[in-house]
């Protein structure tokens, strides 16, 4: 398959993830959609790696995976902490970091 197909799929998944981030109110789901976007980027990276015959893209994709794992860890830790303090698990209710 031409690389363009893979890139199109990647773009679609990215945009679906973006709309999910913008639309959902449960922070857990927002994080999930964030994962979607990261995976789309991974797909694009690997596709380009295949296209150029250069494994750097795959290495990059692996590092992205590591980063995604770290980010999920910390994010979930935050959500657990929020839950422990009996605050609503709702992105719209948690807006005090403003001004």
């Amino acid at each position, binding site marked *: 398959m031409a690389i363009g197909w893979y890139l199109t799929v990647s773009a679609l998944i990215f945009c679906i993830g973006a709309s999910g981030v*913008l639309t959902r109110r449960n922070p857990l789901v*927002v994080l999930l959609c964030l994962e979607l976007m990261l995976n789309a980027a991974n797909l694009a990276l690997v596709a380009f790696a295949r296209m150029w015959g250069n494994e750097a893209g795959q290495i990059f994709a692996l590092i992205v995976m590591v980063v995604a794992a770290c980010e999920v860890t910390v994010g979930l830790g935050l959500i657990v902490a929020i839950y422990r303090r009996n605050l609503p698990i709702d992105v719209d209710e*948690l807006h005090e970091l403003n001004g």
Partner: protein
Amino acid sequence: MSPTTFGWLVLLFPLLGCIVIGLGFKQLKGRSSGWIGTGAIALSFAASLGALFSLLGRTPAHREITSTLWSYASSVGVDAKLQILVDPISVFMILVVSGVSTLIHLYSVSYMKSDRGIVRYFAYLNFFVLSMLVLVLAGNFVLLIVGWAFVGAASYLLISFWYRRSTATRAGIKAFVINVVGDVGLVLGTFFIFRDTHTVQFLATFKDIHHVYHKDSTDLVAGCVLFLVGAFAKSAQVPLHTWLPDAMEGPTPVSSLIHAATMVTAGVYLIVRLHPLFELAPTAADVGAIVGCLTLLIAGSIGVVVTDIKRVIAYSTMSQIGYMIMGASAGAYSAALFHLMTHAFFKALLFMAAGSIIGAMAGDQSLDRMRGFRKALPFTFICFLVGGLALSGMPPFSGWLSKDDIIGYLSHRGGLFFVLAIGGWIGAFITGLYTFRMIFRAFFGDPCPEAQELEHGHLAHAEVPRNPMNGEVEDTDVGFPGPEHVIAEREWPMRIAMSILALLAVVGGFIEIPGVDHVISTFLAPSFVGSKLAAEQPSTKDAWIGLIITPILGLAGITIAYRYYIARVGASTKLQERFAPLHNFLVNKWYFDELIDLVVVRPALMAGQLTESVLERVVIGEGVTGGVVGAVRAGSAAVRRAQTGFLRYYAAAIILGLSCVALYFLISST
């Protein structure tokens, strides 16, 4: 040593005195600052004598010498240098100024001895003498303006010397503001002249003047009128005279030095120095002469009714300077300077004596309460008498010869000037009247309580120190007069100074007796070489006719004063009641203060208030600054609304931004 070296020395000593006293104010104890100040001016007088003799050692044709220290500004065509001009006029002036100043410094040493601000006083006084000497020694317009401005500043500092008195500070401000009006006139006049002659130096200007202007050209007349404005402000001529009576708020030696002998004569000096310009612009000269005559009459009339002794002498000063301005504008240059010299002698003497009697009255200055001090203050009485006779033009005192020198010249010149001479004679009559009114009221009659106390050897003391003008209670700490009052009978510095001046007031005129000797006019002649007016002098016969008329009029004034104040007690009060409206008009000083207030002060205040409330508050405060602030606030508020704290909106913003960037790249790549 050349005359100009002496000239620089004349300037150096007061400068050093001022700096030493000013900087050493913590170290100088007691009256040491007074002795330093007096010594500095005495050295300056010695240097003036040196300048005189070295100038006399040159031939008359070579007696106008300039000397430059350095160049201030030599660009855009201006050639301003730190340059002095030593010629007969300036040597005459520095002799008078430094001589009389030395005596007044000596007097002040005892007068101000208990004042806590004595060091500051002598620093200011030395600064004043320095400025006056700079003014008269200046060789170009720029240095003249510098001296002029400094003199005004020194006058302000010294008038409001007792700065905790509200009347004194107000008087100082009034004097300064009116002097600034004069400064503006002087500076503008300089610009007018400079525009056409392209030089600011005196000698160069006088040489070129005939090529640049024709007779009575408008530019020259305008420039000269502006110079006259400056002269009038400094010499307290109508209508810029209202500051002089109020300036009596300063200590008496200050009044004697600045407002009798030196600063107020700066206007006369100006006209005499710039005589080539005035001769080429007779219109301006006529204006000067008329104003001088008006002033002498108006001031004399007010002097007859005021009750504060210092203000009587102040109006007398105004009147005599009117004579000098009249004479200088008309062309009687050496006569005007001669009268300047003798006036310095007897007026300073009168002020010093007034200081003594005010001390005897424990600070009270009102003639209403002074009476019968003849036995208690004999020395002061004699000094007053000598000064008063000289002022009234009685022979053989100096005032007789000098005053008539002016009037004689005016009557000889004829035309308009003869009318002015008649004004001068009327003025002579009024002078005798007010002078001896003052003397008879203060020294004759039953002694007042203070005089009685003094006859028993006890100097009166007020229990509560008060402001003599408005009776406000004050204390004797710094900023107010000191606790001790002094009289001449008990202080030897005062007696020495007054005796020297009394002697000069008696014999000072003898150097210029018509037909016998003309020391002054011969000495000053080289400065007036090209002047046509100076060459026309009245004949000896005419001069002696005038010399007989003037004292007769003066004597008439004295007799009337005798009649009203000694012969018939209470006659003056009856006269006052009969002519109450006239009396009111005169006591209110011809309502000049009110007129100036209405015409100048109130509009200025209203303009200021209007500007403040409208322009400052609304336009700038709320409009410009407020507008900018409001715009920034509104902008910030608008931007702040993006900081909602809602995660999703931030994400939306990011996605939107990303789309826009991608769009841009899409478009730019096609």
